């Protein structure tokens, strides 16, 4: 028995590595790739964080809101005349124009999906004053329905890749190449997040959102339209998820598949928790940290362990610092 047990474990030398050399050699490659991956997580995480901050609800259907955006972007490309196959030769202006159209389309599709979910699934529950568990189960149901509708429409196979932009090295950092794709993703995500931050923290509507997050009843008494604020929150989360979906599709062109949102959704939620759920800047930080950590983990332990790193990180964070790195704060933000 003892001998067998040793043989059983020794068998495993090949399936997990502890490769510090690879980690060191690819450190900067991993960091840069992790940052571009992480900014996509961060955009999706903002949706979770906003809804959680206002409603104390984990919007399970947000991963489907995201993937609907990816399909929106894909069929916009299709509608603009692009077909699966080799990357077409386009001038910079053309690329920017087409991407801007796809960005708007993806954002609208995701935003609309989020608002529909809110209206159809969550609002009736709020009217009845349902307990949190009921909300969560409804959210799971909504996620299932959205995913299955996609499945019935497009079936199980991923859409064939449409590429608009050929990744090209622009400059190098410590020997690691930085591509135009990575720059676009990181810069565009940051811009969108700054806009969202300003909107929530500086505008009149944003003040309403923070007021409802802090105390819905008092906010209502002060003349804030709670239902409209909740709708707005879902809409903003959806719009950002749509943008994330376009970037995701540019990064992984064959990524438009019906259950493609699931994994990214959990990871984005992990990012939100990591940074402190309900905290906008925490979502950014959490996303970037998660993206980078995943890439380091992949180098260290081997390719198959990437997703495990993310989930273990989630459990560890919740064990030691359940409020996340920056703490929960949408409601406590300064006025």
């Amino acid at each position, binding site marked *: *028995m003892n001998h*067998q*047990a040793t*043989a*059983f*474990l020794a*068998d*495993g030398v*090949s*399936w*997990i590595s502890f490769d510090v050399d690879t980690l060191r050699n690819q450190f900067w490659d991993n960091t840069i790739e992790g940052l571009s991956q992480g900014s996509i997580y961060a955009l999706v995480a903002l949706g979770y964080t906003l809804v959680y901050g206002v409603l*104390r*609800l*984990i919007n399970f259907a947000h991963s489907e809101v995201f993937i609907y955006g990816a399909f929106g972007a894909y069929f916009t490309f299709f509608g603009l005349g692009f077909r699966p196959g080799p990357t077409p030769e386009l001038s910079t202006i053309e690329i920017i124009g087409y991407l801007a159209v796809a960005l708007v389309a993806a954002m609208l599709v995701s935003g609309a999906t989020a608002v529909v979910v809110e209206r*159809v*699934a969550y609002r*009736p*529950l709020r009217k*009845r004053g*349902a*307990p*949190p*568990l*009921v909300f*969560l*189960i*409804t959210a*799971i*149901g*909504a*996620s*299932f*329905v959205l*995913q*299955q*509708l996609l*499945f*019935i429409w497009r079936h199980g196979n991923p859409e064939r890749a449409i590429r608009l932009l050929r990744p090209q090295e622009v400059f190098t950092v410590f020997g690691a190449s930085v591509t135009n794709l990575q720059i676009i993703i990181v810069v565009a995500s940051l811009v969108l997040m700054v806009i969202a931050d300003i909107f929530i923290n500086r505008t009149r509507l944003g003040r309403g959102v923070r007021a409802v997050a802090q105390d819905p009843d008092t906010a209502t008494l002060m003349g804030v339209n709670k239902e409209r604020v909740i709708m707005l929150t879902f809409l903003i989360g959806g719009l950002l998820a749509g943008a994330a979906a376009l970037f995701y599709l540019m990064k992984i062109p064959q990524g438009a598949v019906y259950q493609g949102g*699931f994994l990214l959704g*959990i990871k984005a*939620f*992990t990012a939100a*928790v990591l940074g402190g759920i309900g905290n906008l800047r925490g979502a950014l930080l959490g996303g970037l940290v998660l993206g980078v950590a995943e890439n380091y983990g992949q180098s260290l332990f*081997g390719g*198959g*362990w990437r*997703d*495990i790193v993310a*989930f*273990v990180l*989630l*459990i560890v964070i*919740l*064990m030691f610092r*359940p409020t996340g790195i920056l703490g929960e704060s949408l409601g406590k933000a300064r006025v």
Partner: protein
Amino acid sequence: MRSLSERWNSLSRFQQWAVLIPVVLLVYALPLLNPPILSTEPAYNFPIAMFEVARYGLVAIGLNVVVGQAGLLDLGYIGFFAVGAYVAALFTSPVSGLHKLPYLAVLPLAIVVTMVFGLILGTPTLRLRGDYLAIVTLGFGEIVRLLADNVEPLRGNRGFTDLGHPPGTTDAGRALFNQTDGTPWYWLMVTVIIVVLIFVGNLERSRVGRAWVAIREDEDVAEIMGVPTFKYKLWAFAIGAAIGGLSGALYAGQIGFVNNQKFDVVTSVLFLAAVVLGGSGNKVGVLLGAFVIAYVPLRFQEIAQYKYLIFGLALIVLMIFRPQGLLGARQRLLAYGREAYMRLVGRPEQVSSESALAKESAKGAEA
């Protein structure tokens, strides 16, 4: 429905058994009778279909302890199910490098191992708020699946073949418990379900069960009243995990093959749907829910491909219009309160219609 359950409870123990025994016998006889309307044939072998239903039933009873009794939302229940299946595979399949055990000895082992997993996962996470727990358990379910993908001794997609089965041969010399005949497996599963039902039923009526209901209704109040909530939540989690592991081991035995393909989160949500649909906290309810979830796609093959869509819609509609499920939870705190009052004073409570308790009980009747 309420009056029916009340009438049932007012029967004596003897009368209850007098009704139960024929029902149980009928349940046992189902695969032999193969009743025409109920039958899933020719599309799907009926005894195996009944085994599937019974498997979902056992899973639903286990998950009900966690979700229904203690009110903890566990989305990674499939993880425990998978652990049980892999324990059975590792210790009975000839492909595995580990010591071989007889199949029946593997069942208690699967219970112990999954219970340990439940404790390991529960200890750090049960201190968290309810909705975080859902995500952490979801992560756990995915970790188990990914480990099955990546850890070489677990053989990934190739999986384990020729799993063990309980002893016994037929007249023809074949093993009694084989993969093509679902009937013996169904009988084994129903027997296990009855044993587990008695076990869980006794737990429910004990101090532990009352603590669970108190936690489910209001955790803070339970804590203030001196219920060690963390301990009892951990109990619920571990017992639920153990039942999940047991059903996983039984499932693995019937299929005779285990690989990494059957343990996705979608199935986990189906399990949850069975509990919520039937009525979480109500054992008869969750069995009904499990029957609906497992049986409907097998009986009506033409809608089988839409089953996830249909059950997802059912979840939303149910949560809006009947959140307690088809059959609501039987035990509520107020019921306990009345019982205690009965015992103390010797007569049912008499409250004026204006008191808070009366309003509360009216609300309870509505729910």
